[in-house]
């Protein structure tokens, strides 16, 4: 029995997949927004002078990095509601999971970039009378941010792909939408290729965009 590739199936599935893709993008954007705030915060706590705050950030980062994202998603969607006595919207659970997860990795990126700035930079800042905060804000942060961009881009791409794990809690994102189409037309080959291409277009766009930003910042070095 020969395999009969039908490109028409691909074109027909696109409009439906675009609905899922919209949710994938929204979850990624909101999740990363939370992740960036969490990551910048806990990354800075990790290098603060207060030992308790360092420890606190450490516990968060280690417990996220040390457990699978699948387990984190299940815990937030199925576990937490039992303790809280209320149900969580799967979309909200998904955004939370992506945010919490990416936050831990972004924290390490932030910490690493800050620590990579030569101590002489902070000393020079303090030497002209800038306060600790001013030195961080005007001297260290702009240089660290620039060094973060490649790693941040990488994390954005990882988080975008991680949203596909949310099928386990029934979020109607791109992967889930693909599954649903296949359940009705049984054309797994064509549909999964289409889904894969859509992810690829998104991740390549992120990579291109960050490349552009990086070059742009380099000119103004």
């Amino acid at each position: 029995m020969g395999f009969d590739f039908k490109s028409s199936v691909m074109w027909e599935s696109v409009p439906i997949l675009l609905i899922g893709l919209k949710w994938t993008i929204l979850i990624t954007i909101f999740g990363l927004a939370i992740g960036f705030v969490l990551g910048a915060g806990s990354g800075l706590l990790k290098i603060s002078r207060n030992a308790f705050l360092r420890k606190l950030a450490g516990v968060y980062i280690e417990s996220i990095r040390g457990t699978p994202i699948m387990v984190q998603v299940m815990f937030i969607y199925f576990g937490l509601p039992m303790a809280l006595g209320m149900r969580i919207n799967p979309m909200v659970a998904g955004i939370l999971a992506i945010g919490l997860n990416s936050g831990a990795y972004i924290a390490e990126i932030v910490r690493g970039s800050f620590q990579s700035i030569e101590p002489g930079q902070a000393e020079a800042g303090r030497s002209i009378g800038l306060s600790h905060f001013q030195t961080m804000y005007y001297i260290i942060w702009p240089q660290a941010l620039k060094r973060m961009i490649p790693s941040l881009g990488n994390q954005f791409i990882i988080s975008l792909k991680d949203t596909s794990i949310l099928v386990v809690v029934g979020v109607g994102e791109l992967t889930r939408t693909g599954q649903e189409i296949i359940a009705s037309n049984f054309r797994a080959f064509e549909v999964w290729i289409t889904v894969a291409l859509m992810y690829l277009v998104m991740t390549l766009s992120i990579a291109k965009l960050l490349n552009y930003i990086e070059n742009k910042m380099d000119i103004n070095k």
Partner: protein
Amino acid sequence: MIEIKDLIKNFGNLKVLKGINLEITQGEVTVIMGPSGSGKSTLLRCINRLEDITSGTVIVDGHDVMDKKTDINFIRTEAGMVFQQFNLFPHKTALENVTLGLVKVRKKSTPEANILGKKLLEKVGLADKADTYPEHLSGGQKQRVAIARSLAMRPKAMLFDEPTSALDPELVGEVLDVMKQLSCEGMTMVVVTHEMGFAKEVADRVIFMDEGNIIEENTPEKIFTNPQHDRTKAFLKNIL
């Protein structure tokens, strides 16, 4: 101007400064020499509290740097620091390096700061480099921008931590020239350097340090022609 009494500085178990006493008067140029690890740079860094001191007192222009009531950011504008590695801000132009402190610490308006900044760059011979980023400057030019950056705060004293040690030999002169000019204008200067020529020409006093102590101090002529301590003799023999 600067008064140091019984200054002791330990890094953990390592005793870096073992009881330094030193008084530097207004307008004086003091050169500190000594082998690496003798505590020269640490002494300099204790003066503007880039290092906390373990015990003793450091008084800059009447302010005890370790006193909780002293505004340390203020002390640091009083005693400007120039580093071996320049430490220019790479994301800012030469002019922005100079004006940052004027705008953020001295609260000057940007146009006002720019006028002052350009004057200072002119003073160090770099008026034409105002809009250049540090990566396009030579080592000597970077160090001159760094000096201008410190001068912008109108410090009462300048601390130089091996300002020419990271430079190609042919670029040393341009930095020393700026420093000589400053001393002529009456700036109080403490300079850690091994530039004998500079010390002979400009210094009022040379201090020789070894293993955390000041072991000899004298005028440059006397210390170079007739060193008293064996350690000083051995050191001078090696750098000549």
